[in-house]
Every structure is written in C-alpha cells, then in structure tokens.
C-alpha cells in the first residue's frame, strides 16, 4: 500500500476512535427510563416550556438561539443536535418528536430502524397550537398538563371576530407575504380584520414588489420588528438581528405607511407556534384601536 494511502487510512481510523461521535451512548439499552428527543425548535418551545425537561435527552441545535427559541436557560447537559439519523441512533431514544417538514430520508431511516416517532405538524392556524400541545402531551402521557395548557390557549384565542372590513397586511422586510395558511394570517382574521388572502393576494405565500403592496391599499401594514416586544414574554436576551428591524423596509413602504398605519410585531411571536403566539391578536387589536 502506498505510504500516502496508509497514512490517510491510519488518520481516518485515529479520528474515528478519538471522535466523541465514535463512541456509543453511555445508555446501553437496558435503562427503561424514557429518552425523549425533540428535533425542531418549534417543538422545543412547547416541550420544554410546558412539559419540562424530565427525560429529555436532546433538543434541536437552535434551542439556545434567542432569535428563534423561547426556551431560556436550558440545562447544558441536554444535548443539542441536528436532525441527523446517526446522532439520533447514538442517543437511543424511546421517543423522537419530529415535524411534518423533517427530512424525509432521515425519517424513513428512523422508521425502518423501529425508532418511535411522533409527528408534531407545523402550525399554520392558531387552533393548531393547542392541538400540538395535546399531541406532545399524549406522546409523553401527560394528558392533564396538556389539557390545562391547551384550554388556556384556546380561551385566549377565543372566537374569530366578525370581519370589520379593515385590511391589515403583514409584510416581512424582504417583501414576503405569508398566505392563508399562516399563523400571522390567522391572527389577523381572529382580530376581526381582513388578511392578504381575502384581498387579492391568493392563498399562497410569495415575494411581492413594493408597488403591488401599496396598490393593494391596506389600511394597516403589519411589520416585523425584533424590538417591538410583547411584554417580557418573548426572550430578548442577546438578540441582535438588524435584519428584523423596522427600518429595513423599502423607503416607499415607509413613506406610504406612516407610523400610525403600521403595527409592529416581534416576528418570534408568529415564526413558531407557542404559548405566547395568541398575543398577536391582542397586539393587532390594540394597534387598530390606538388609531
């Protein structure tokens, strides 16, 4: 064998033996305690904040990022993982919580290996929040806790207000408009206003140019602002994302929609469904009432 090839092989074997990923988990499979893995930051939010960390061995690697996560001060001994089959096998889980958008190849691999998985669908309506809580609660066999949390959220959401004929359009700073199946669109409808799908934008999301947005003539422009805040309910520690500031919007939109016609919302309230998400309804109602 040429020396270069043998050196390379030796190096690979050495790296494999010394790498932390080269070792099997300390769990030998005889331990009967549940071992739960959450693989998505939206699931992390509900799992940790409602059901706690008991038996949780790993969560998604975005859990500590306050830009997306609502989880604060999570025990560092809980592993942060990406949605990778080998990482999940290594942890010998008894339950893996996945999303309907999880990589299907990894999902099939886990399914073929007999890993117990429960799908928590990505929430596209406010009513999905309590459903997701119930799904996780059932998987964890914590029905009572799930029911209390789900009922509280359903009560907060309440009934859809009658459409007052006022059009509120949510636009991200790069002119993206979420369609009918979005938490922000649903919240606008629950607040008693017309959302984008009711005013000519169709059900599907997409990027629209500023002129199209102005031409649709919304009464209110709902814009993202990471500094909008929502009391102390949204984790803001260490978040510095100029991408999500309100001054990132096109100058024409800023000129056409002065402050009194803008409603600012922290995007972390709608990017993932969690207990604080229904607050969007209150913020929109307050924004409209203020005018």
């Amino acid at each position, binding site marked *: 064998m040429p020396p270069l090839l043998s050196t390379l092989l030796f190096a690979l074997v050495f790296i494999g033996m010394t790498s932390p990923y080269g070792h099997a988990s300390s769990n030998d499979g005889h331990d009967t305690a549940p071992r739960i893995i959450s693989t998505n930051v939206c699931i992390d939010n509900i799992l940790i904040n409602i059901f706690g960390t008991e038996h949780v061995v790993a969560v998604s690697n975005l859990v500590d*990022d306050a*830009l997306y996560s609502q989880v604060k001060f999570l025990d560092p001994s809980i592993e942060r993982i990406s949605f990778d089959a080998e990482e999940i096998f290594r942890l010998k889980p008894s339950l893996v919580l996945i999303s309907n958008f999880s990589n299907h190849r990894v999902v099939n691999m886990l399914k073929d290996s007999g890993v117990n998985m429960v799908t928590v669908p990505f929430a596209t309506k406010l009513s999905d929040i309590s459903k997701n809580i119930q799904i996780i609660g059932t998987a964890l066999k914590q029905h009572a806790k799930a029911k209390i949390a789900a009922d509280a959220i359903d009560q907060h959401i309440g009934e859809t207000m009658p459409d007052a004929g006022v059009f509120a359009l949510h636009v991200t700073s*790069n*002119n*993206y408009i979420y369609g009918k199946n979005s938490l922000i669109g649903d919240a606008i409808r629950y607040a008693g206003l017309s959302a984008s799908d009711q005013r000519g934008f*169709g059900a*599907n999301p*997409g*990027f*629209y*140019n*500023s*002129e*199209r947005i*102005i*031409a649709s003539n919304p009464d209110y422009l709902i814009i993202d602002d990471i500094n909008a805040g929502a009391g102390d309910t949204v984790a803001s520690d260490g978040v510095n*994302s*100029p*991408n*999500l500031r309100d001054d990132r919007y*096109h*100058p*024409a939109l800023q*000129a*056409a929609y002065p402050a009194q016609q803008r409603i600012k919302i922290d995007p972390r309230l709608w990017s993932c469904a969690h207990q604080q998400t229904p607050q969007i309804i209150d913020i929109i109602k307050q924004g409209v009432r203020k005018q």
Partner: protein
Amino acid sequence: MMVKPLPLWLYAAALALIALSVSIGPYKIDWTQLAYDVVQKNQTIDTIVFFELRIPRTIMCILTGIALGTGGAALQTLLRNPLAEPSIIGISSSAALGAVLVMSFQLHLVSLFFMPVGAIIFSMVAASLLVVISRTSHDHVTILLVGVGISLLSGAATSFLLSISDNPYAVNEIVFWMLGSLANVSNDDLLLAVPFALSGAIIMLSTANAQNYFVFGGEVAASSGINVRTLRAKVILGASLAVGGVTAIIGMVGFIGLLSPHLVRPFVGNEPRRTLIWSPVVASLLVLAADIAIRLLPTTNELRLGVVTTLIGAPLFLYVVFKRFGH
C-alpha cells in the same frame, strides 16, 4: 471618437421603453394628480410610487444595461473571445460571492457601502486571473474553461457560505437576491450603484479607440503604440467596477453582456470600438424590455430578471457556440 449616429428606431425604442417602464405597474397612477402634486410639492401615494419605485427601477434598468453591455463588449475584445461575458467567465459570480460574503457577516447592515466594495474586489480578482491566463494562452476554449472554473469555484464558495449560515433569514435573503431582480430598487440603491457602474463604464469606454488595435492580439497592439498593460488594467478595473457595482444591488443578471455585443456587431461592421460604444445602449434596451415583460406577465409572484435573461440568453449562448465552432 467619431461614431455614426444612433438609428432613429433605436431612439424611438429607447423612449418608448422608458415611457412604458415608468408607466407600467400594479398601482394606477393618476397622472394629472401626479403633475399637480409635483407642482404643489405634496407627498402622496402617486408621488411615492412614481419617484420612489418606478423612476429608480427604470434608471437601474438603464444602468444595468450600461454596466453589462460595456463589460461584455470590452471583455470579448480583451480576451479575444466572443463568448466572454461577465456571467459566463465568472466575474458576476465572483461579484456575487463578494456580496454574499458581506451579507453572511452582516456587514451590509453596518453600511450598505460594503456590498459594492465586496462585489468589486472579488470581481476584480476574477477578471485579473482571466487576463493573466489570456496572456499565456490564446486558445478561446482554455480561457472560457478557466472562466467556467472561476464561476464554479465562486458558486461553490457561495454555497459553502449558505450551508454554514445559521441564520435562515439571511439564507433566504441571499438566495433570492442571487436570482437577480430590479423589483424594489430604491433611490438609496441607485446612489450606491451609480458611482461604481458609471465610473466603470467610462473607464471601459475610454479604451474604445485602443480596442480596435487589440483585435489581432497584444503584440500587434503594442507595435501600434498601444500601452497594452494599461489597456488591460483599465478593462479589468472598469468591468469589475461596473459589474460589481450593479451585481451588488440587483444580484446576478446573466447573458445581457453576451447578447448585446452580438446584436450590435452586424450594424457596426464588427468594429470593437463601435461595438463597445453601442453595446451598452442595446443592453439597456434589452434590460428595459425584459423588465417590462416581467411586469406584464400575469404571474402571482414577479419573475426574477436573472431567471428571465438566463432563459433567453442561454439558448443564444449555445447558438453562438455551435455557430462559432461549426458543430
């Protein structure tokens, strides 16, 4: 520099396209009201749409055409390759890499000025590398392949930056920016692009007379008293400034720089000097026409200019290749 006057129909086409560009859009401008508001100095939705959206977009169309048209014509002569075009030989993708690097490190949020600077530096490196290769090899295919290699390398580096990015918002923004679009160009964007794109185009146009001597190679040009080194430096600097400045703002728009010199040549007798002068004019008309077509298409989401120009330009590129190499 003596140039034949622009054919009348080109003037008419230019005026018609500019008029269409400022008048077409989803918002219906009340022109009488607009005129009144302008006189009264009122800020209304009509004035905002006209002055903050349509005018900057139309000017950016023209500027893009000037940058890519001069870049394509100058590079085709310098590299003595009819297939040389900023997007094919890696200059646009290198400019995109520079801009993506700036976006990845969020320097554009500190100052937008970093975007064109990053794009220009990287496009300059790519253009310099190509010129060095063109001095050692006169083979069209070699130069083209080196350009394709630079383009692939820049693309891979861009993909690498995207794959290691931990910010989905930034990834989303970068991906859509790279597709190239004139939608949402603002006056602030114009202020950033104009100095670089125009100075780059002027530098390239200043080489117009010397370009005629370059058709037969550097040695012939040098024997005719042309400072070849200065000429090369000017074209590299000019193309990098123009292409980098425009790419940083609107993303990658391919094939305009390839198409326009080829469209111009039959009318100017294949003379590099005149090709260089008229190519930006035709390129601007092409960009204006493509952008107007995009706005008229009944699609839910506006198509991206870079996608449209590539869909039209790529078959033409293949046509030129087959015609050139006799397949």
